[in-house]
């Protein structure tokens, strides 16, 4: 029988200020069911009138046990779990997981697969930022922005469906390469997107960037200093808006990012508006990468030829006994990984997305841990909302860009 622990108010006194105990300030729950918390997040607010004295994030409402679940599956099968962590960045999660597995078992990835991975993760980054700019607008009462952003996101999801057959839970990137080669329509679809998207970003900017109401809500709100950001492990656009030029695509290139010419947008203001500008600029930079990667897309295989880790092509199964054995072995037992631990990280739309894998010599990971950007970025919220109004909290929370699936894993 589980013991029910008695809790006393003494234990939780330190979370709030002295004034809350005398009833001078008010405690208010924002969430867990609140449209502006972008998921199932509970924020316990201590308010002095409309002014926030203290904000305590309470997480765990969306806990799905992804990390633990992955330990019960083979390396190959565990991949489907990582799609479901950060559902705005599924391709990026696949990439980070596959890079980790490839590093653990020392598996090669063909050039073509790497280039396609870059195209798709950058498209996914744009899609994620689109949802962000849409919901950000919506939170600040710019309804049209939401509709426009989702219209463009649909084009990207269509490209993902074209490649993988699924709009969101793609599992397209596999250890050792890709699931299949991209279909013939792929290039035309991406080129079409590259053609129309810059004009659409201009439209977003027409609507928002200099809109006086928008500016009034954002300028100087939720200032995140460089020091606070670094001490809380904030990464991604939120860090770059605070004046730190740190992007894993530049700092620790993976999947051939070093070949592409792009800028990392950095702002120094650190307020909500700066975070908005950084992300808008990233639209254009990501598009540059997509175009370059597409222009020099090499021909060749999209999967490693190492039959100990990658299932053989279908044409060999019916004719080669060895291939059939490999096929059955890989889909039932999976492949063993050495007794070692590795960490590999990629730049997700929200920041540093890292995966720590520990192998124990068997086909299942002994330990999987995700270093997810939303978790660390959320930890800075209590620091930056103090002294702002409740209405501003909505904007600040949106500007940090958290995905609750990414926090509770």
């Amino acid at each position: 029988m589980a013991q029910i622990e008695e809790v006393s108010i003494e234990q939780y006194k330190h979370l709030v200020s002295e004034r809350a105990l005398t009833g001078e300030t008010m405690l208010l729950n924002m969430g867990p069911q609140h449209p502006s918390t972008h998921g199932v997040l509970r924020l316990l607010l201590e308010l002095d009138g409309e002014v926030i004295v203290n904000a305590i994030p309470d997480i765990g409402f969306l806990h799905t046990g992804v990390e633990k679940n992955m330990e019960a599956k083979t390396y190959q099968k565990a991949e489907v779990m990582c799609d479901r962590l950060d559902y705005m960045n599924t391709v990026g999660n696949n990439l980070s997981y596959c890079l980790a597995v490839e590093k653990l078992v020392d598996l090669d990835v063909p050039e073509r697969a790497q280039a396609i991975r870059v195209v798709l993760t950058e498209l996914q980054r744009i899609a994620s930022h689109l949802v962000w700019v849409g919901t950000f607008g919506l939170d600040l009462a710019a309804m049209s922005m939401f509709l426009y952003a989702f219209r463009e996101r649909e084009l990207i999801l269509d490209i993902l469906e074209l490649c993988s057959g699924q709009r969101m839970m793609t599992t397209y990137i596999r250890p050792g390469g890709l699931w299949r080669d991209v279909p013939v329509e792929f290039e035309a679809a991406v080129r079409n997107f590259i053609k129309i998207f810059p004009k659409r970003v201009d439209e977003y900017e027409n609507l928002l960037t200099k809109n006086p109401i928008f500016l009034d809500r954002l300028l100087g709100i939720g200032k995140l200093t460089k020091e606070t950001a670094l001490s809380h492990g904030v990464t991604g656009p939120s860090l770059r808006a605070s004046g730190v030029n740190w992007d894993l695509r530049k700092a620790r290139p993976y999947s051939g990012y070093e070949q592409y010419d792009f800028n990392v947008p950095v702002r120094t203001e650190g307020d909500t508006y700066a975070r908005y500008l950084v992300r808008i600029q990233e639209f254009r930079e990501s598009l540059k990468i997509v175009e370059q990667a597409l222009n020099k897309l090499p021909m060749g295989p999209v999967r490693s030829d190492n039959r100990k880790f990658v299932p053989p092509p279908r044409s060999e199964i019916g004719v080669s006994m060895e291939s059939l054995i490999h096929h059955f072995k890989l889909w039932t037992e999976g492949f063993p990984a050495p007794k070692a631990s590795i960490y590999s990280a990629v730049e997700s739309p929200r920041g540093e997305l890292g995966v720590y894998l520990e192998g124990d010599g068997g086909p299942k990971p002994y330990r999987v841990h995700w270093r997810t950007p939303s978790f660390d970025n959320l930890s800075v919220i209590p620091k930056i909302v103090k002294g702002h109004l409740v209405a501003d909290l909505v904007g600040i929370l949106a500007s940090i860009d958290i995905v609750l699936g990414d926090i509770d894993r």
Partner: protein
Amino acid sequence: MSVLEPVVELVRGLGQTFRYLFDRPVTYQYPEQKREVRPRFRGRHVLKRYDNGLEKCIGCSLCAAACPADAIFVEASENTDEKRFSPGERYASTYEINMLRCIYCGFCEDACPTEAIVLGDNYELSFTDRRSAIYPKEMLLEPVPTVDMTTPRKVETGVYKRSVPEMKDPTD
């Protein structure tokens, strides 16, 4: 910043939305109007047959082993030439997929050594209780091309020995 600039910017934004008044809508009127799925779309599963009506599934349970969600249950039985379901020695006497557990990852399709299970185009699944979410073999199996091709059926002895066919790499 001049006094007029905020007004100009507001009007610019309003003009942007106003222009869309004359644009065609991008939305679909579902369910009257449906969006066509892509060839690789992973929807409801279908158990395929050969052109001669025999079932492709040989009951090897590799799909069940590959399934990350443990949604598939397969039980195999022996074929005879008197009562033949599929080429080779065995066929699936029970084949069940729990559509509530299934995550449509397509691993079963990748794992199948005879291309028997394929994720089709149907995405409109609904159930009224948990039991009816478990699709049995009769619901999954493709209908026979003509009536005389039903399974099980009596066939010539010694013809259908090979259970894994020769296949091409998928291109779509």
